[in-house]
């Protein structure tokens, strides 16, 4: 299903005379998960926003299947699924209504029956209004919204922050399945469990990316950030 990997090359971003990203370059193969680590305010969310097409970069490219997704918006919308940090949900509406924003009725029923939404457990609270949901439910629902139309690249910004173990387990299980089907995951995280999901990690510091091998030693990791 997924044919090719991605290549980020030379992405730069300045904001109010401050350089947030300097020449960001990395690759990710299909069926892999790349972790972006970094302290608070290091630019992880900015990079993901650029990749998702929310923010414009000052330079650089985002290649996928020979196309620069930063230039080809229509293709980018089709192949990228972006899960931002805040939950992209409408509090007054139910899970069903929030999902209907992204799925057609038939797709939604299909996914709830046996697809990604079933996997995330969203079917258990499909009629519940968002304002009555727990944090974990909201996050699972958010992911469910963002993976509509089976995107080939998934960008996640701290997906399991402030979630309990059970919720995290469900999300990681889904991510593993997604990876196994050939999807590419770019994960911005602080969480050590999420780091373990990643096949490759990079540390974003002072606007530059540096490859990092996590060996389970968080003290070492903290020292590098």
């Amino acid at each position: 299903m997924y044919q090719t990997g991605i290549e980020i090359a030379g992405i730069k971003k300045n904001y109010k005379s401050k350089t947030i990203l300097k020449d960001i370059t990395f690759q990710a193969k299909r069926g892999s998960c790349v972790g972006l680590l970094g302290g608070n305010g290091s630019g992880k969310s900015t990079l993901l926003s650029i990749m998702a097409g929310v923010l414009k970069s000052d330079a650089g490219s985002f290649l996928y299947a020979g196309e620069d997704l930063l230039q080809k918006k229509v293709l980018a919308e089709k192949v990228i699924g972006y899960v931002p940090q805040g939950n992209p949900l409408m509090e007054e509406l139910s899970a069903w209504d929030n999902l209907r924003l992204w799925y057609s009725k038939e797709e939604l029923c299909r996914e709830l029956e046996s697809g990604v939404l079933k996997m995330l457990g969203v079917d258990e609270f499909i009629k519940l209004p968002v304002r009555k949901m727990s944090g974990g439910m909201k996050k699972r629902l958010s992911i469910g919204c963002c993976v509509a139309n089976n995107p080939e690249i998934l960008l996640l910004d701290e997906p399991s922050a402030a979630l309990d173990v059970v919720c995290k387990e469900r999300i990681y299980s889904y991510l593993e399945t997604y990876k196994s089907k050939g999807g590419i995951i770019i994960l911005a995280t602080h969480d050590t469990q999420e780091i373990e999901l990643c096949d490759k990690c990079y540390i974003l510091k002072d606007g530059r990316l540096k490859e990092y091998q996590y060996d389970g030693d968080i003290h070492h990791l903290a020292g590098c950030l």
Partner: protein
Amino acid sequence: MKSFLVYFTMQLKRIVKIFPTILCTTLLLCSVLGLGVAMLLQADGEDERQLKVSVGLVGELDTYMGYDINVMLDVLSSRFGAEFVSVTEKEARQRIHNGTMSAYVLLPEDLVENISMGKNDKPITYVTSDGKRGISGIVMDEVVTVIAELITCPQSSIFGMQNYLRDVGREDEIWQATEELNIIYITALIDIYKMGDREIIGMANQVSTAGYYACSVVVIFLIMSGLNCSSLFSGNKMGLCKLLVSKGQKVGNQVLGEYLAYFLLLLTFFCMVIAVVLGAASAGLFSVPELGEMNLGEMLLFVLQFIVVVGVISALQFLVYEMVEGVVSSILVQFILAVALGYIGGCFYPLSFMPEGLQLLGGLSPVGAALKYADLCLVQEAAWKELGLLVIYLVLFLLLTIWIRKRRVENEAAL
């Protein structure tokens, strides 16, 4: 297009979810406004005889001069609807405090003697409750000055006549002549209104007072009802905005979808309040001459024309919600803006009461332009200039909203 329609539908659904609550509060708001208007129209009255002012008389006048003043006051009372009631000063102050009396007149001792000697070091004191000199206070001052003129002039000339008779040695005629001249003067006072021929030419394409009030009330209602929707539109929704942008639903589409849903909500309220106003007018609770002259088609056209006003006001409120984060702050800012624009635009005091400079500014402000446009539509006059201004405001507000949201999404994504 499809995704825009889906997003717009979701916004409508959000509004429908909390519509019952908003509806209840809006109905209450409507009632409060309706009460205010009813009281205002009641205060306006039918003619001079319904000025409905209750004034106390403290002190006594037991001479023929006092009789004259009392008769004068009785005449003024019947002519101008002011009710003069004899009370003690303590009773008068209590009644003013309770709101059952507007003011009292304190007649000093030896008033007559003083006047007959041409002195007024003991003047008649008009005591009112409010030190605040609102329009009604200022108007009462002017009426009091007039009453003084109406009382002192005849008395002055009667004394002059008496002086003449003394000068020519005809003192024995003074009493008779005074009686006769008094009666003539009192008759003159009674007949004074017959000297003027009132010619009502009709509104001649100007809006009537009742029509002005009706349009003002609807506009005030619209600008205030925005406060009910703060929980819908304020707060941090950047997560959803970013996701929508990543999926090709640009900021412009988002804003348009949300705005249209809000506009439809306000339009619903507008239809409600118009139905109430028209219903009350046809039930005879109050009279708006312009509406009385309209047939059904013209009335529908007026309502349709008013939709532009709804559009502009909803766009302005939407812009404020976008500018101000936080439910509490957005309520405060919406309120202050509503009152400020309502005042400048002529919703509380007619624009004609304001200085020329402010009239110009008020007429150009969004609410002022909206009210002016509504007034012109009510009298079925062409209002292209005002319509053009409103359309410019509408577009400007929406563009500003889009720009602000775009900046916020970029700022949020960059930080």
